[in-house]
């Protein structure tokens, strides 16, 4: 039995390796700034959605406010580098610290709320943050935003082109993915899923539900901040318009479409939707009409998300394959 478990784990790391390899090969095939930028955006979305999936898919706590953390990460980096002349690395550290602290402070009261009340609270929080981005002009540059955010560099090597920055983003992405997978299959991952399954039963098993809810909220907030910080380095420019409610909802949509409660679901959801959104842009005014329709259909036909649909399909195929020898034999006899 334990050997079976080992086998499964190894297979999982095989997937991680394949994924990391693919993500590393793509830039060699599609080497232009545009594709690189889209790939960076895709990777950033993936990082954020992985966090969101831990929060929503595993622990069952809805957040409609992750654009706020995305923005806090981006603004922290931008402010630290452009206003205080710190290095981009310190910007990222600042983003993590500020974002983590804010997430912690909001999590304590907010996670006492349930379901849609929690959704509203996170949404309200994100709206407040968005307004602060606009109104605190001294710090945030108001609606003009902040520009001239430098790219990080190591010993003279600056990650200042999309190609170079992608290397950094790729590393962060793989690290986040591995960490998320580790959490998912661990004691903490089970505790999170228990909180989702039944909060009372989880508590009765000794799971400190409040603690884990706060931890996972802070973790997902930090991942969004990291994403924001990388975004600031890529764009060199930060403005409040990039962190609206629409962005929060898009992130949640990615998590749900990919498949909740599975880290790979987050990867699939973020990648598919990012590519699809960009591709559909060529349809101009019809772009979002098609996107909306696809979204509805995706949910109608794959209510468990893409990952859920495919794992169901795989299971069915497996059953079929196991059943084939007998039925095939019968068919031969009949003919």
């Amino acid at each position: 039995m334990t050997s079976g478990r080992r086998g499964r784990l190894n297979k999982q790391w095989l997937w991680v390796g394949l994924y990391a390899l693919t993500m590393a090969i793509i830039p060699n095939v599609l080497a232009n700034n545009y594709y690189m930028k889209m790939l960076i955006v895709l990777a950033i979305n993936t990082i954020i959605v992985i966090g969101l999936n831990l929060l929503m898919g595993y622990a069952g706590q809805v957040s409609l406010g992750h654009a706020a953390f995305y923005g806090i990460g981006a603004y922290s980096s931008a402010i630290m580098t452009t206003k205080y002349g710190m290095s981009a690395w310190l910007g990222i550290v600042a983003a993590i610290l500020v974002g983590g602290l804010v997430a912690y402070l909001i999590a304590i009261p907010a996670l006492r709320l349930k379901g849609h009340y929690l959704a509203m609270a996170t949404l309200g929080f994100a709206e407040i943050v968005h307004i602060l981005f606009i109104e605190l002009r001294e710090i945030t540059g108001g609606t003009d935003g902040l520009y001239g955010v430098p790219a990080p560099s190591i010993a003279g090597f600056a990650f200042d082109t999309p190609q170079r920055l992608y290397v950094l983003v790729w590393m962060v992405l793989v690290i986040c993915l591995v960490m998320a997978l580790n959490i998912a299959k661990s004691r903490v991952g089970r505790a999170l899923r228990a909180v989702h399954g039944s909060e009372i039963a989880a508590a009765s098993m000794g799971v400190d539900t409040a603690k884990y809810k706060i931890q996972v909220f802070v973790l997902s907030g930090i991942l969004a901040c990291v994403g924001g910080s990388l975004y600031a380095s890529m764009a060199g420019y930060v403005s409040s318009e990039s962190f609206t409610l629409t962005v929060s909802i898009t992130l949640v949509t990615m998590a749900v479409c990919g498949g909740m409660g599975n880290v790979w679901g987050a990867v699939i959801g973020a990648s598919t939707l990012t590519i699809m959104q960009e591709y559909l842009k060529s349809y101009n005014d019809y772009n979002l009409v098609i996107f909306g329709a696809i979204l509805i259909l995706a949910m109608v036909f794959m209510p468990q998300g893409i990952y859920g649909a495919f794992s169901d399909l795989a299971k069915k195929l497996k059953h079929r394959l196991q059943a084939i020898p007998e039925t095939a034999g019968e068919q031969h006899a009949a003919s």
Partner: protein
Amino acid sequence: MPLLEVENLRKQFGGLMAVDDVSFRVHRDQIKALIGPNGAGKTTLFNALTGVDKPTSGKVLFDGADITGKRAHEVAEIGIARTFQNTQIFANMNVLENVMVGRHCQTKSGIFSCMLGLPSVRREDLESEERAYSLLTLVGLEKKAKSSSDDLPVGERHLLEIARALATEPKLILLDEPAAGLNNEETSRLSDTIYRIRGNGVTVLLVEHDMGLVMEISDEVVVLNFGKKIAEGPPLLIQQDEQVIQAYLGQEIEHA
């Protein structure tokens, strides 16, 4: 010293006194039953004991220590585990993982070591898995270890909850109507399981409607009616208690 002492416990919801001044003791290695007509306050009492609800007044002592008003997860860590009348299975996990959640109190890895996948985490995980597996064997669910817990029939859900509660390695286990939804054969297997649990040194307090089972396995019975304790004693005495008969008869007349 008794394992569990309940002293003058009260729980009030608005104007309703759901548990009213109840006191009783559970001794080590006992199987004690808590019975009473519907709405007598049994589950409320369980909730108050396990920290799901805060008691309005009164005291709960466990192993001599005051645990009144402790939160549910703290109560579990101290050594009281429970099952639920409306089963609270983690439907998003398979059967084995459900039991592994029960190992939570007995393991330590925090979020950082889990994130990094440290060797200690892996060791702990394997240990939990093995222990969970043997508990599933105890309740007879080992064949379903990898199935989705959401597909289990009601009776097996109760068994799974028992295995999960045992995984916390409690000194006292509270079973809330474990026989609900079981057929006769399953019920008799359940009573074997309960004996085995006690055999492993775990004290049992159960709420149950199946009087046959209660009278068969319990050492002592506490009877609640309208939140008040109306009788306590060995099964044979309880069966003859005038007040108890009244309480149950009264209910039957109401129902008819």
